[in-house]
C-alpha cells in the first residue's frame, strides 16, 4: 500500500505545524514502487527527487500559509502558489545567501539542495516543496565548522565577487555525493550548470577535487 510510504515520509519530520494527514483528500500515491532491474539506488533517487505531494488539494491563487523544512528547521511562511522557492527563501525567509542570477534556470546561482539533490530554486514553486528537506548555503556549515567544500573554496580562492559562490558550493557538495569528482574533466562537465562570470573555474575545479579528497589537481 503506497500510503505506507507517505506515512514514513511524514514520520521522519519534526513535529509542529498542521498535520498533513488532515488535508488528505484521498489515499496518497508515491509511485516509486515499480522500478526496473531491481535497482534500489534508482528507487531512492526517484523518491527523493520527485518529492510527491501526498494529498489531493487545491490552493487558490492567493496568499497561503505553508511550512517549509529548511536547513533542518520547520519554517512557516506566507506565499502564493506562484512564489518560486527562490523568492520564498530570499524574500520571505530572509535566506539571502541563495542568489538570483537569471531567474530562468540558466546560471545556477540559485542552486539549493532538495532532499539532497541540487536543483535550481528559481525553477520550482515553494508550494511544491512542502514535503521536502531543503538545504541552503546557510545550512551547510555545522555551526562554526565549515563544510569541507566551503573550506576548500576558501583555500583554493575559488571565487572573486562571491555572487555565484553559494550556488557553486551547493552544486559542488551535491556533485561529490553523486560521485562525479573523479577527474578534473568530470568536475568541469558536472559543474557546468553554474556560471561564474569572474572566471574562477580552474580554482573551483581544484576546490571540488580537494573537498572530494582527490587532490588539488
Amino acid at each position: 500500500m503506497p500510503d505506507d510510504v507517505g506515512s514514513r515520509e511524514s514520520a521522519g519530520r519534526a513535529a509542529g505545524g498542521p498535520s498533513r494527514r488532515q488535508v488528505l483528500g484521498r489515499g496518497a500515491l508515491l509511485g516509486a514502487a515499480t522500478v526496473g532491474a531491481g535497482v534500489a539506488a534508482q528507487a531512492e533517487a526517484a523518491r527523493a527527487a520527485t518529492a510527491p505531494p501526498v494529498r489531493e488539494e487545491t490552493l487558490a491563487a492567493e496568499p497561503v500559509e505553508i511550512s517549509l523544512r529548511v536547513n533542518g528547521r520547520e519554517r512557516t511562511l506566507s506565499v502564493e502558489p506562484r512564489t518560486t522557492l527562490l523568492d520564498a527563501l530570499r524574500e520571505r525567509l530572509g535566506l539571502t545567501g541563495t542568489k538570483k542570477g537569471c531567474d530562468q534556470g540558466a546560471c545556477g546561482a540559485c542552486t539549493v539542495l532538495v532532499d539532497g539533490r541540487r536543483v535550481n530554486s528559481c525553477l520550482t514553486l515553494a508550494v511544491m516543496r512542502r514535503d521536502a528537506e531543503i538545504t541552503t548555503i546557510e545550512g551547510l556549515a555545522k555551526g562554526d565548522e565549515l563544510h569541507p567544500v566551503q573550506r576548500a573554496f576558501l583555500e583554493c580562492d575559488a571565487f572573486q565577487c562571491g555572487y555565484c559562490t553559494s550556488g557553486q558550493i551547493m552544486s559542488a557538495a551535491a556533485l561529490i555525493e553523486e560521485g562525479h569528482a573523479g577527474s578534473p574533466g568530470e568536475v568541469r562537465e558536472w559543474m557546468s550548470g553554474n556560471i561564474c562570470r569572474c572566471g574562477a573555474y580552474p580554482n573551483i575545479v581544484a576546490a571540488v577535487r580537494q573537498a572530494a579528497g582527490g587532490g588539488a589537481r
Partner: protein
Amino acid sequence: MSAVGQPLARVEGRLKVTGAARYTADLPQDDGKDLVHAVAVCATVAKGRITSIDARQARAAGGVLELITHRNAPRLRPVPAQEVFGPAHETLLVLQDDRVHYSGQPVAVVVADTLENATHAASLVRVEYAAERPVATLFEGIDDAFDSPRHAPPATVGDADRGLAEAAVVIDRTYTTPAQHHHPMETMATTVRWTAEEVTVHVSTQTISMIRDGLATTFGLRPEQVRVVSEFLGGGFGGKGAWCWPSVVTAMAARLTGRQVRLVTTRRQMFAATGQRPHSVQRVRLGARRDGVLTAIAQDCVGDTSAFYDTPPFFIGAATPVPYAAPNIRTTQRFVRVNCQTPVPMRSPVEGVGLVSIESAMDELAAELGVDPLELRRRNYAERDPNSGLPWSSNGLLECYERGARRFGWPERNPKPRSMRDGRYLVGWGMATAVRHAGSDPTSALVRLGADGRAVVQIGSQDLGTGTFTIMTQVAADALGVPVAMMRAELGDTDLPNGGGSFGSHTAASVAAAARLAGEALRAKVIRIAVADDGSPLSGASPDDVLVDDGYLFVRGDRSRGERYAQILRRNRLQAVDATGEHTPPPREGATVARWAFGADFTEVKVDPELGTVRVTRHVKAIEAGRIINPRTARSQVIGGVVMGIGQALTEATEVDRRDARITNASFWGYHVPVNADVPDIDAIFVERDDPHIPGSVKGLGEIATIGTAPAIANAVFHATGKRVRDLPITPDKLL
C-alpha cells in the same frame, strides 16, 4: 614580516562561502517591513514615440502602489557630462518624454507590495508606440559615420602612408568585433529610502561617488543629502561603472511612494540597462621590411555609439601606438549612431577591443614573412613609448615574452598551420602582446587605531570581487606596522573618505597609495605621542628612530626599549587615534615617463576540423604590472580575465535583429558566457618590477588580465586550421 606581497586569503572570504555577505538585493536585513518592489517596463521598439500607455489592467492587479511614466515622473535636471561617467544626457530621457531611443529603454515603472505583484503588474502595462525605422547596427549607419576629434583625436606618429609605401610587405585586413555584454552574475540592484532629510541608496555600482553626485544633481539635492552604499558587489567588469537608469528610477519610486523601494533588473533587462562593449570594424594595415621590422601601422576603426548620446564614449584605437616601435603610426576612429544603449567600457574599452585587430594582423604578418610570431614582436619591441616618445616608467614585456614562452613550451611550435595534431583534433598555438595604461585616481583614506590595538582602514572605494578589501588590509597593516589580523577594511559607503571609481585598472594603485599614506601618517602620529609621553619607554627618542613591528614600537638598536600601540593609547586615555592619507596621481600633462602594464598570452587550442568546435586546452599568461600586492587574489584575477577572453574569442556576441534593432539573444541561455567545461588550466606568471614613478609600483591587473587573450586564441585557431577568422567570436559555423 611585510603583508604586502603575501598570498593572504580574502578577508571577506568566510562571509562569501557561508552566504552571509549581503549584496544590494539582500538588503535590508534589519527592518524590511517598509520595503516595496519596483519593476521596470521597457520599450519594445528601438526608435519612435510612445502614443499610449494603458495601465488600467496593471493598476487593477493586486498590491500596486504606484505607476510611473513620463507623464507623472518627477522632472529631472540634466547631469553635466563631466560629473558622471557614461551617458549623462540620459537623465533627460528617463521617463521625461515620449521619445524612445533604444529597445529596452524604461518607459514605465510599477511599484507594488510584493515582488510577485510588481512583476505581474509590470507585464500588464500596455504601451503603444509610433515606431520609426531605427539604425540597427553599425553597418546600417556606416554611411553616416562621423569624426569626433575631441574624443578620438587621430593618434599620429611620423607618416603612416609614407611608411606603408616604403614597406616591402603590407598586410591589409579588416576585422570586426561584436557588441558584447558584461553580465556580472548580480544584475543591477538598487534600494532607495527617501526621507525629508536625506536619500539613502544601496546600489550595485563600481562608483558610489558618481551615483551620489549624479543623483544629487538630477534631483536637485546637495551631495551631502545623498548616501550611497555598495559593500558587496556581484561583479561589474565595466558594466556597473557608468551612469545608468536603474538608480534614477528607483529613487523616483522611493520619492513618490515614500517607501523604501527595491528594483532589481532582470537578466533580459541587463542587455539594455548598463551599456555594452561597442561593435567595431577595424581596418589594419601593417607595413614591414622583409626582416619583419615594422615601417608603419595604420588602423582605421569605426565603432558604434548610441543615438541619444552626443559624446562618443572612448577611442578604441588609443593604445595602438604603444606596443611596437613603428616609426610611422596612425590610428583613427569614426562613430556611427545606432539605436542601442550607449557603449561603456568592458574590461578595457581601448586595448581590449582595438588591439584585437593589431595582434591578429601581427600574426598575419608573421605568417606572411615566415617569421615566428613571438620573434616578430621581439624585433619590434619599443624601447620608448612610440606614441609620446617618453621612456617607460618600467617595462617587463621582454621578460613576459621569455618566461611565458618558456613555461608554455613555445619553441616546440611547428610554424606550419595544420601541422600539429592530437588524434582527430588539430592543435594550434598562438600568442599575443597585451598592454594597458597604468593609472590611478585621487583617493582618500582614513586609518583609525583603537585602544585595543585593533585598526580599521576606510576608503569609499568598491570591491568588485577583485580583492580590494584584502589588499587595503595588507597595505594599511604594513604602513601602520600591525599584523593583518589586527586590521579591518571598510569600503563601499560615501560616508567614508572618497575613493573614486573601481574601473580602469586603477583601484589597486589608488587604494594602496592612499591606505599607505594614511597608515604611515597614523604611525607617525602615535610615535609623536609616545616620544612626548614621559610614561613611555620611547620618551625622548627621536621619532625617526622609532620602529614598529607587529604592533610593537621600539627604539632603533634596542628592541627592549619599546611598547605596544595599545599601551600608548590606553595610558594617554585615548579611545582611538586616526589619520588620513590623500593620494594624488601624477598629472598626465607634462609627464616625463610613460606608465603602462605589459603582458603576453600563449594559448593552445584543439579544433575539431570536421565539426568546427574549438576548445582552449591550455593557456599561459605572463604579466608585468609592477609589484603584486597579493599573488593569490592577483592570480585569480588573471585567470578570470583569461576566461573572459575565451568568451570574447569563442562564444560571446550580442545579436541584434537588423530590421528593428532589437536584441534576440537577451538571456543567459542565448548569450553564451563560458561555462566550466570551456575552461582549461590557466597559468599566470607575474614578472615583477619596481617602478619608481608609480606609488607602490602598483600598475593594476583588471584589464591587462583580459587584453591579449582573444587575439592569442584567434591566432591559435589559424595555426591549427590555416583558416583566419576575422570576425569574432569564432563559433563552429565559421570553421566549417
